[in-house]
């Protein structure tokens, strides 16, 4: 099967989606480059799963367009789904099937299925062939789902909250699979997560979603470089959060307050100086802090 010549793995343009009166996606635009790991970040209910469903053709675009490898997932489901390896958030594998039956069954749908690779993965994930899926633990269930998504070496691995509810050991396995996918064959990975620690480790690019919109997008390195964490010390204790224009959020108490700013560092420092505060500590914030700062800023 030849892959298409589309430059991007995923191209979403001005996508909107309403559920009843609730606007789940609001004129959202996004591009995922091939061969990169893309992290989709957002709080629960920000619209990550809704966006992923559009990529799979599970939801039809009400307005705007969605293209995966140049194909429309609704018009050409076979073209899109044969190129995507999907791990859903709720792991709806049929409980009555055994692991080896699941592999044989899934193999029938994908011409690129590699039985040797599937067997290697099964041994690596330590899954018993004869075990029924309903007897598997949560972690083993996730690994089984990941196995059938990886075994046919899809061009894009699409993971919806892959680490949710899993112990650190299984999370390592999933991260390893992500890294192996992109390292070995230069394939694309798109995963949604609210564990920013993982996104920071493995993602090349990220997009932060809030209320159905992308509030921040770019390479992970650039995003981190554009943000600064500043600790201000004010001359007198502040009873409430001091208003410093140019910062995304400010937290703390008494005389010392921690602020996260996005590219407006000098402006923030000057404004704080006018309010009687000076910088005592400065450094790069973690993605977690950036995310919380943006969430706080957007909710006002």
């Amino acid at each position, binding site marked *: 099967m030849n892959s298409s010549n589309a430059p991007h793995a995923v191209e979403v343009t001005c996508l909107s989606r309403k559920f009843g009166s609730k606007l789940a996606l609001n004129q959202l635009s996004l591009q995922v480059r091939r061969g990169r790991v893309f992290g989709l970040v957002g709080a629960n209910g920000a619209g990550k799963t809704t966006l992923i469903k559009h990529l799979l053709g599970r939801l039809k675009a009400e307005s705007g367009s969605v293209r995966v490898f140049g194909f429309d997932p609704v018009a050409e489901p076979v073209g899109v789904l044969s190129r995507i390896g999907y791990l859903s958030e709720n792991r709806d594998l049929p409980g009555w099937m055994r692991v080896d039956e699941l592999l044989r069954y899934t193999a029938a749908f994908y011409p690129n299925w590699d039985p040797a690779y599937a067997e290697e993965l099964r041994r690596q994930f330590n899954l018993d062939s004869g075990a029924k899926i309903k007897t598997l633990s949560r972690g083993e269930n996730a690994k089984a789902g990941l196995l059938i998504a990886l075994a046919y070496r899809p061009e894009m691995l699409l993971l919806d909250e892959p680490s949710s509810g899993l112990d650190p050991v299984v999370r390592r396995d999933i*991260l390893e699979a992500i*890294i192996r996918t992109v390292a070995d064959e230069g394939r694309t990975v798109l995963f949604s997560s609210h564990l920013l620690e993982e996104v920071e480790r493995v993602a090349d690019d990220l997009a932060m979603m809030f209320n159905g919109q992308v509030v921040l997008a770019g390479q992970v390195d650039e995003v981190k470089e554009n943000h600064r*964490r500043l600790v201000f010390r004010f001359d007198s204790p502040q009873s409430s959060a001091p208003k410093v224009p140019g910062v995304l959020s400010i937290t703390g108490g008494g005389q010392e307050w921690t602020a996260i700013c996005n590219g407006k560092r000098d402006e923030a420092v000057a404004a704080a100086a006018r309010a009687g505060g000076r910088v005592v500590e400065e450094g*790069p914030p973690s993605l*977690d802090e950036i995310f919380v700062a943006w969430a706080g800023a957007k909710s006002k």
Partner: protein
Amino acid sequence: MQLHVSTADGVPIYWQIANQVKYLVASGRLAPGDEIPPIRVLAHQLLVNPNTVARAYLELEREGVVQKRHGSGTYISDTGSPLARKERLKILSERVDALLAEARHLQVEPLELMRLIKDRSQSIQPKEAK
């Protein structure tokens, strides 16, 4: 080569990797001519994106800490390189800053601190001479 990366402090991961390699070289745990793992292997080991490891290796190469040999991997370069010495001093100066901050906090004067360093150095040296 045992490295440890963490996302807690906000320090970029490639920077942490590069720094730790430099520290290992400076402390002698990595000798000149030792091979460091290929990008893919290290990425697997640390569970980070291979591009991040690639960037760290690029930094190290640019600073002369490591050398890439055609087709056979990446190796630590000779310590004779002046940049390596500069790195070693830079690492130590960070430690000195931390020590000075602590001394100020404990209300120990810098002069008293220097005397302390000299005393400790003398008490350690005879042990090494044996």
